[in-house]
């Protein structure tokens, strides 16, 4: 279980608070959604969980299977099963996709990865996410379109097989077909890995047609103001955030 326990978070070397007493429990197999107005702390939450250097937790705790991860480095958190699908994946010129993925896989397993079986498996996954297999040998995210970058994030997810997946606006900048491909692959992954759980950060309910959530939370001013089921997301789509009152929908 991933548990966020009353966390307060600020930007490193600044007094600016971004999260103000946020709590959330994500059990195995569950899909949670966080929605909220721009600048309310959604992406900051994702990065803070992953241990991004720009964010510091000033109070509260984040636990995986009841053990705090706050003292763990970013790579150690990843090895605990955390995976952040980034909104704008970083471009790294000169580091090839294959070199990067193989190094990540070796880091995860602690064993040498056979090149032939690695290439075979990755190329199979690339076909499933409809990425050209030549992209495996190109620099990481360099020259990739917005859609290709998002598919490449999903490719990494399929190869590294994490347990706690955070999708930070994976739907932004995707056309209808690409959104379906990305979501189909994530849904298949969740079916194959019953203990995996999903935290979706989004502005749009459309993604929830493909990835059915168990819970929807509204984040405002760095705190979860309301929780409910998918009907809450549809209400937001219709009414906007201004009409939402604090509270818990059952």
């Amino acid at each position, binding site marked *: 279980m991933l548990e966020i326990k009353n966390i307060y978070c600020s930007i490193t070397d600044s007094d600016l608070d971004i999260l103000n007493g946020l709590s959330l429990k994500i059990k195995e197999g569950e899909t949670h959604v966080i929605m909220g107005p721009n600048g309310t702390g959604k992406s900051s939450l994702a990065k803070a969980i*992953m241990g*991004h*250097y720009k964010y510091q937790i000033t109070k509260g705790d984040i636990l995986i299977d009841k053990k705090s991860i706050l003292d763990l*480095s*970013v*790579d150690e*958190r*990843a*090895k605990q099963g955390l*995976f*952040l699908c*980034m909104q704008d*994946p*970083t471009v*790294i*010129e*000169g*580091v090839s996709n294959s*070199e*990067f*993925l193989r*190094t*990540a896989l070796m*880091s*995860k397993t602690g064993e040498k990865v056979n090149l032939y079986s690695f290439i075979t498996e990755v190329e199979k996954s690339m076909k499933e996410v409809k990425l050209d297999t030549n992209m495996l040998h190109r*620099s990481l995210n360099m020259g990739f379109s917005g859609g290709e970058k998002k598919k490449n994030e999903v490719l*990494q997810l399929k190869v*590294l097989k994490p347990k706690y997946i955070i999708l930070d606006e994976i739907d932004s900048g995707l056309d209808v077909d690409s959104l379906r491909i990305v979501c189909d692959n994530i849904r298949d992954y969740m079916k194959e890995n019953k203990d995996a759980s999903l935290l979706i950060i989004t502005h749009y309910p459309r993604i929830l047609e493909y990835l059915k959530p168990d819970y929807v939370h509204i984040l405002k001013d760095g705190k979860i103001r309301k929780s409910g089921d998918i009907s809450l997301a549809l209400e937001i789509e219709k009414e906007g955030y201004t009409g939402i009152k604090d509270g818990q929908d059952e």
Partner: protein
Amino acid sequence: MSKVLYVIDTKNKDYKYKIDEDTIIYHFSINSSSKVTIDLITEGVNLYYYYNNINYDDNEFNIKVNHKVGNTHSELYNHGVNVKNNKLTYYVDGIIPKKSAKCICNQDNQIINIRDGKSTIWPNLLIDNYDVDSNHSAYIGKFSEEKIFYLMSRGINREDATRLLLESFLINSDSIDLNKIDEFVKEIDKI
């Protein structure tokens, strides 16, 4: 088909080239200073110069590219890693006299300081002709924390993430034949 030259320095050296055909030069330097003078002497020639440097003491890299005739093209990619608290200085000159029209003269200079070395880049474009396409860039600093975060977020530890970035920075062309720079590749592993 371009002519390809590999140069590996471990001692201070000076080089002079007269370029009369399309040429790619891969220049690798391990803790040494170099002075390079290149004259582009035939119209239509292209020069690609990749300088990659691992530095431990105070050193300088000085390169001058003279576009002696018009319609010539030079691209310089100068990458250095300054490992200790020492001085590394690049002087990079692209020179286009008045008589040499329609030249392209570009340079990209980057130095990564692993510790707190004092690095300086002097990117100079000395151009006396209006019909020229020319750009330069210079960066001195550490590897981007955002890149390291991205690599680490996939389970790669900081040391391995830095190594991936170092290798990509210092072997900055897919066309480089690693068998020809074995000594340099081994030196990257020592950083």
